[in-house]
């Protein structure tokens, strides 16, 4: 992915582009740029639906550390 945009932002930006294009606010000059961007955003959104980066072991390790450090609450 080109930049670290999160899926929520990607989703919103995509909706924005759809609104723009539906409202006829996009000129042919901008179209290529917008479509390219939309493709990128769609990719981000679709990837989000089918992947997750969390790792149980990592969380367990973190829990372990947190517990050893003592409960602060």
């Amino acid at each position: 992915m080109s930049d670290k945009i999160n899926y929520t932002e990607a989703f919103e930006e995509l909706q924005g582009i759809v609104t723009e294009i539906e409202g006829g606010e996009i000129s042919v000059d901008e179209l290529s740029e917008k479509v390219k961007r939309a493709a990128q955003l769609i990719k981000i959104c679709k990837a989000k639906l089918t992947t997750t980066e969390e790792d149980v072991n990592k969380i367990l390790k973190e829990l372990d550390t947190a517990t050893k450090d003592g409960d602060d609450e």
Partner: protein
Amino acid sequence: MSEEINGKKIFSLLEVTNSIKKTIADRYKSSFWVKAEMNKLNYFPKSGHCYPDLVEKQDGKVIAQIRCNLWKDDYIKINSTFQRVLKEPLKDGIKILFLATISFHPEHGLALRIIDIDPSFTIGNLEKEKQEAIKKLQDEGIFRQNKTLKLPLLTQRIAIISVNTSKGYQDFLGKIEKNSWGYKYFHMLFPSILQGDKMAEQMATQLKQIKKVRTHFDAVAIIRGGGGDVGLSSFNSYELAKIIALFPLPVLSGIGHITNDTVVEMVSHKSFITPTDLANFLFQEFHNFSVPVQKAQETIINKSRRLISDEKTKFHSEAKLFRSVTENILIKSRNSIKEQVQSLFQQSQFLFKNEKEYLYSIREGIRKGTNTFCISAKQEIKQFALTMKKDVAAQLNHFKLIVNQNAQQVVQGSRVILQTRRERIFQIREKCSDKTLLLLKNSNLELNSIEKNVTNMSPKNVMKRGYSITLLNGKAVKNFDKVKVGDNIDTLLFEGKLNSIIKATTKTEEI
């Protein structure tokens, strides 16, 4: 019986305990209803008996406490009634209304024997407690707190509180792991029993754990199912409900049951009747995200195509229009240029004509002006000439006068000078004639002497004295070298001439 020692009446311990026993038995002949709180059930599985510890509290403090006996048969009967009516077993912490007898056993002491427990009292009490819990949470302003949290667009990472082996958990996992849309969820189990006395405590512990790693999760799901409606009363616990209400992540509950919502479900962010419903909710969230994305893709493709084709059409018609407009403009421009050329030509002609006339008039003006000027100049010159003539005449006259005067002056001056000169000349002449006479006399004398000399010097006289002149070829020989041997020479003497031929020459030595 009692004996007397040193005047004291003394009882044996047994006598005392028997006495107490008798007294109590006499006093408490029949059974009676008592309300109390079941502090501890103290069930002994081996014997099957229970020895409940009952208390009465006031403001949280124990103000009365007694040990009870609940014999095996009574316990089994009461417990089954509870399970049936209350959906709860007989357990610690509940309020009970029980039928009791009081007895005293010499060995075990005083005890209440529980014969029966009225479950409706406990139900009412539990309900009362539930209502109190709700009210307390509301009063604290936290009842809806968890609902105010926002679920992310996609609830994807779920911390599950459930029992590994429970059917509800397995159902839930099966659903979310093998969904037909390929949605991917991350889930992690934080195991806790979900019924009974220990539940609230275990759940609280796990929630605490989740809190530590909350950044890895979007929501907490409490999954329970297949356990029937039994043992749900802990879900009404104020303490547990408070933890959930204040939990930093949205809590989703899927506690399968039929009866009224528990307090935990009420304070949850969202509550579902079954774990399957919860899973469906998660899918729906994903659909809500996925469908617009898919739709966006289609819309963008369609609209882009449409836009491009529209633009193409527009461009073509624009081009057409442009061409026709351009042609029109060209024709118009051409005509306009033609007209302008014509007009320019006419205007130029007109201007030339005008200029020509103007120049003519100027030329005429100049000519006239020149004429006039010449005439006036002529006259002026004439006038000037006249004036000049007069002036010159006058000047000449004037000069003549001056000249005349000067001439007269010159004449007079000259006369005077002449007179003076003449007189001077007379004087000089007189002086001159005197001196001249003297000079003449002297000169005469001198001349006479010279004449005498001259006569003496004449060749005749010289020759008389014996001198001769030698002539060679008629010319006097003055130079010895001119005469050579053999030359014919003439020698002039006083009275004649001799002709001779040179026989020899001898040069005289210098003296």
